[in-house]
């Protein structure tokens, strides 16, 4: 199994979730994060003083999937999250050794 972490633009969430549902990914966990990267932050002005906001709000999605679903997932993620502008984000894939569904104690792919 794989543990996929995607950093995306917040306003792409709806599109991404639809794309994932379409390929049968039924669960994910979302965290509000702030990203620092190539994308230049915006400037806010308060009383004439400029503040550069360099940490930009992003959403982090964590999705555990079966190995067999990985490619499909990556494609769905890339397509649905992409706007083509700097700051679209990243996908990180880690190996997932074990997964457990707390309610039932099931483990492995069936726990996802």
């Amino acid at each position, binding site marked *: 199994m794989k543990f996929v972490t995607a950093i995306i633009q917040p306003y792409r969430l*709806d599109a991404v979730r639809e794309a994932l549902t379409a390929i049968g990914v039924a669960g994910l966990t979302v965290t509000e994060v702030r990203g620092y990267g190539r994308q230049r932050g*915006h400037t*806010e002005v308060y009383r004439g003083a400029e503040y550069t*906001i360099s*940490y930009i709000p992003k959403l982090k999605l964590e999705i555990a999937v079966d190995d067999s679903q990985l490619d499909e997932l990556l494609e769905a993620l890339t397509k649905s999250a992409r706007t083509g502008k700097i700051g679209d984000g990243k996908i990180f894939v880690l190996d997932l050794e074990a997964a457990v569904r707390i309610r039932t104690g099931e483990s492995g792919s069936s726990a996802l």
Partner: protein
Amino acid sequence: MINAADTAWMLTSTVLVLFMTLPGLALFYAGLVRAKNILSVLMHCVAITCAVSVLWVVCVYSLAFGEGSPFIGGLQHAFLAGLTRDAVHPGTAIPDTVFIMYQMTFAIITPALIVGAYVERIKFAAVLLFSSLWVVVVYAPAAHWVWGGGWLAGLGVMDFAGGIVVHTTAGISALVAAIVLGPRDGFPQHNHPPHAPWMVMVGACLLWCGWFGFNAGSAVASNGTAGMAMLVTHMSAAVASLTWMAIEWVRFGKPSMVGIVTGTIAGLATITPASGFVGPAGALIIGVVAGGVCYVAVDIVKRSFRVDDSLDVFAVHGVGGMAGTLMTAFLVPLAMGGTGLPEGVTVAHQFGIQAIGVLVTAVWSGGMTYALLKITQALVGLRTSRESESQGLDLTGHGENGYNMGFGGSSQ
């Protein structure tokens, strides 16, 4: 001669009515939008207040309350020409300055009410321009017709504190504005819950308290009429709140906090035209009708009309204000505990007059709003870009964020 006691109450009432807009209405509306648009809404209310204040002094006061034709006042008071410190306002016992200030606060809140129709997608320049034009073209004449000795006053229309002048004009204009602008992206499939219902409640409470300045202040005196206006205003608010609550309880199994305070505002708007004329019995009736009718109207606008009058200005203020104006005819008679109809006027007759008042004002407001929005669109544009709408107006329109709590505010 100046009556110091009346003046004391009217000074207070003026503060109360300004307080209704800033921060009352501003918070009521700001809590209902998404977090990313909170500042834009607050800013609309502040900027409208400032712009209308200046225009009021420049010409709107004179157009509304100056002597002129039955349709519009003259410009003799433009720039408050000739105003002296100790002049008494004709027909009252308070200084002219106080009358001007008091009425100014009405002219402020009326276009500010319309904000609720176009939030989360309008350009700030459009808000400023449209509101400025609107207060001259719609508010000034309507105020003149009803309160400035114009033709509706001549007909005998009864509008104590603004069912026609404030709520009908704002409500209808809001509906038209919502239609002209079009809905927010995602409406009606993807709606977004109010980002801060607690703030909605605070705004509603400030409106409630401030409304006593609005209605009881409209007696322009510190007397029994003011006292009764306060009492019936409060009763209508309370009853309408309970009515709205009851409907939600029955329908959804749970009464909501946003619901009950929406009922409050419905009750307040609806009693407004009647507040100086009816008694407690009238207030109870108005309260029940306000809660019920406005509740239904909210649903109809959203589901049947599919109009994104985002914060329900038409359904709550417009429908409430119009209903209250019409009901006034029935509740004023002595038999209902009211002050009574003028001699020889029947309920049906008065109802006809009220209906004409509402209708003509509604048509004028709707038509002119349409025209002014088209002009605004031509001059500065109406809607923000889709991207700006999705990022939020606070950042894209004002370069700010409503909440900067990130990392405990310790860094950005």
